[in-house]
């Protein structure tokens, strides 16, 4: 686990992102997170068999390359001295030049059945027995630093794992104080979760940690439904050929993402945009301040995707559909409300 395996090792062929039919909100929310990891991830809610997992896994091909410290188990960013792990920081302080490498951002999966020690990392038994040294064996949170952390069926995750996840997500640091180990390492990840609400709700605290939230429903248009099945069959028959068929489309998307990423730091938001953000969160009744910030970042990212250097109040309204549904104070008996377009318009 000390060295994250490169992307190419994924055994099963991935369904191309560009070949996904419909589910535009979900796709948009994922793309927004690729363009701007600071949006804070996305929670995809929906019934079984609505391509939730497929979409998240397919995201891998759209993820950009990032510079990393070549031999760091946490894939530290050599250009960001402020966010280095303790070891890299020490090496840098000792005058060493950190070896650089480029690696594509990965989708790291947290299986629902994972144990706490696998998630947080644990005592390296081998080195304890052979050398009598208490050393740290990094876990999934270490592998997820600067990557996308994907939790399928996130609502079924054991409570103590959720707690650990929340802790790390809150600070971007995994503090391990257990089993003779005492250490912290950076763990900044884009949290992507999928869940089927019928199997139980997510704890509010965890819900709030997801930047965006979208609901996917089965397609209702018979023509689209047919198209889904046809593509799926075609993919299963010959994945490589299928991938080639959508390669051009995928590349277009990848290019748009690269463009937006470049533009993003230059996108500005004027006072009218901030005003709209605050008006919406107050008007809709949103808990806390995290929603405000996510809404603003999402609006800015939307502007970047649209090739504009200036975010507008309209961007905010569009962003609200993704950034606010899971943050609304729910009325008694009410389901999570995704159809808030009307309410937004009235504010």
């Amino acid at each position: 686990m000390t060295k994250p395996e490169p992307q190419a090792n994924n055994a099963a062929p991935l369904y191309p992102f560009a070949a996904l039919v419909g589910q535009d909100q979900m796709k948009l929310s994922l793309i927004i997170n690729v363009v701007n990891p600071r949006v804070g991830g996305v929670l995809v809610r929906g019934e079984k068999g609505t391509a939730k997992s497929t979409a998240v896994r397919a995201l891998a091909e759209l993820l950009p390359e990032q510079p990393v410290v070549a031999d760091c188990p946490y894939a530290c960013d050599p250009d960001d001295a402020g966010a280095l792990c303790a070891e890299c920081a020490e090496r840098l302080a000792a005058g060493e030049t950190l070896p650089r490498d480029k690696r594509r951002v990965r989708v790291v999966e947290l299986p629902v059945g994972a144990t706490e020690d696998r998630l947080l990392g644990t005592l390296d038994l081998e080195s304890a027995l052979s050398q009598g040294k208490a050393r740290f064996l990094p876990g999934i949170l270490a592998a997820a630093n600067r990557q996308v952390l994907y939790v399928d069926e996130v609502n079924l995750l054991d409570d103590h794992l959720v707690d650990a996840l929340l802790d790390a997500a809150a600070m971007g640091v995994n503090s391990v104080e257990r089993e003779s180990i005492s250490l912290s390492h950076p763990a900044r990840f884009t949290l992507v979760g999928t869940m089927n609400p019928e199997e139980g709700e997510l704890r509010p605290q965890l819900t709030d940690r997801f930047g965006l939230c979208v609901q996917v429903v089965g397609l209702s248009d018979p023509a689209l439904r047919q198209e889904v099945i046809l593509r799926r069959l075609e993919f299963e028959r010959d994945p490589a050929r299928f991938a080639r068929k959508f390669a051009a489309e995928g590349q277009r998307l990848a290019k748009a993402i690269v463009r937006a990423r470049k533009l993003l730091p230059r996108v500005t938001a004027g006072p009218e945009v901030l005003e709209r953000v605050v008006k919406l969160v107050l008007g809709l009744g949103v808990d806390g301040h995290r929603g405000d910030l996510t809404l603003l970042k999402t609006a800015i990212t939307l502007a970047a995707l649209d090739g504009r250097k200036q975010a507008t109040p309209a961007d905010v309204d569009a962003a609200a559909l993704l950034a606010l549904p899971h943050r609304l104070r729910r009325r008694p008996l009410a389901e999570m409300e995704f159809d808030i377009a009307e309410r937004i318009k009235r504010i």
Partner: protein
Amino acid sequence: MPPASHNNRLYPFVALVGQESLKRALLLLGIDPGLGGVLLRGEKGTAKSTAARGLAKLLPPQSVVADCPLGCDPSGWLCPDCAARPRPLPTRQRPTPFVDLPLGATEDRLIGSLDLEAAVSRGQVRLRPGLLARAHRGVLYVDEVNLLPAHLVHLVLDAAASGVNRVEREGLSQSHPAQFALVASMNPEEGPLGPQLLDRFGLCVEVTAEPDPARRMEVLRRRLAFEADPQAFCAAWATLQETTAQRLAAARLALERVQVTPTALALAAELAGRAACQGQRGELACLRAARALAAWRGLGVVEPELVREVAPLALVHRAGSAPAPAPELHNRLKVFSDPDQEAPPEPVRVADGQALEVAPSAGDQAGGERTLYILSPGAVKPVATRLPAKEGASRKQPGRRAARESHDSRGRYLRASAQRLGRSIAFDATLRAAAPHQGQRRQPGGPALVVLRPDIREKVRAAKHGRLLIFCVDASGSMNAAARMRETKAAVLGLLTEAYQKRDRVGVISFGGLAARELLPPTASVEVARRMLTDLPTGGKTPLSAGLLLVGRALMRELAQDPKLTPLVVILTDGRPNVPLRVSLGESEMTELAGHKGGGWGDGWGDGGYADREVLNLARRLAGDPRARFVVVDTDVGHHHEINLCRPLADYLRAPCVALRTITAGQVLDLVRQNWH
């Protein structure tokens, strides 16, 4: 420890917009760490963590014994090692430590444990200091304290109160100073914190999001600027940060000299009495906070005004037993009398040992009386917000349930045990147990560590298998429907408040009119329950079968999520069903149910039978899962000779049937206590 570079990325304390009481409470704690900790309660995303982390940066650098792992104060209390060293002790300066207690922490890292490497390589039995040692003279921060196992919270609070950490384990027997300012945060939505734990926090702040649009925009603007360029942002606030830090350092020095007037003292006691605080912690915290506030403002005397100012911080969380809504309490505290008609102020000192003593003063005949007043505030009256309960009935140490030990591999690893019960092996503890014996065991060329059978330690896990209670309430338009709903609601809120162990969840399903609905999906949160049960519709017919069907679905859903649950379902009804499923559900869903074979709760119900038969058939199905247990409460107030279905329903459910003619929340609670295991 997080790399030092993380510190440069902290949002400056002084740049926080609004949140005045949050900032005040933390500053007071910074001035007087002996306050006993600050608890930050509030919804998510309200700068709780940011403020706590920011506080440490405001605290002055401190001088420590240079190579002491415990960070001893050269001019203060020394650990045994430092005490034994020749003088003068070498010293160095360090910033005030800020230590995070992560939720996944184990006991050995919290209080410290045997140093494995020293034991193996040198055969020495040495303490490897834990987080409590590292937090000595600094800030210990516990995020989401309500999610931390109660057992660890107790350890933290014990150390916070005594200033000492005692390590008695693995052949170690040692004490060392552990004096720290405790800051904890929690989101009440995730379940409450027990009253015993609550009471031990000196101050408590209710943190809410900023309601003012202009300020809210300012929050956004600053946050955005900070994220864009943390260094520049911090630089812009450096001057204010620096003056605040200096003022805080000055206040710390002035603290000892601040005097407390008897009027202030009496006022604190009276306010605590008003708020129905139990014990004396309330007024003590109140006075200490007022003293710190005086020091902050450069005043030499604690004026009653200051006491009144800090009273909400010190008393809100101790008020009565049920958390009173904050605004109401604030009013209660404000309404209270005019202090200035009291006797002329006599200087009284609040000593550091948390005891109150009246400064010796000639001719002060009322002195003794005043002390007495503090120690036994006559005004303390328990508030009657608690629901009636039998003395001692399942109330004793409800928090204990949190640490129910589990024998499988689920749950959080708490600590290790030498008892062999076939649990998973705690490698860390096993190795520590083996380490001291390596001198005799090691073979040349062999492994560094030889582990033998007696060394083996097993993991004790805190299994948070919560309990689940579902009320299924008849909301039909019978005579006592409204009372039934009202008392059930009171019982739900009572259970959630009392059984504050967060994994216990309560849900409500009601049936009335033509259909059933889940009024409250199972929740552990009093807040959620209160919110969702504001509206309790009653009236119409009695679709009992629809209610049972919904119970079945809820059970199936919950058991799928946690197969270890043993839910209890309490059914309150008149036992006069008169709406068949065909009507409750409509034809289409019935067809779907009928066509649905194999294991579902609803299958086989397309024949449109009569309501009674449906009810009993559903009951038989519900009883099919041995994990679920039922209680039927017959609330029929009608004529005795008329047959109602409660008894047969109970028989089919293999459940007790209890008749309650006038139903009260107390009776419902008692029933639940008797049957909820």
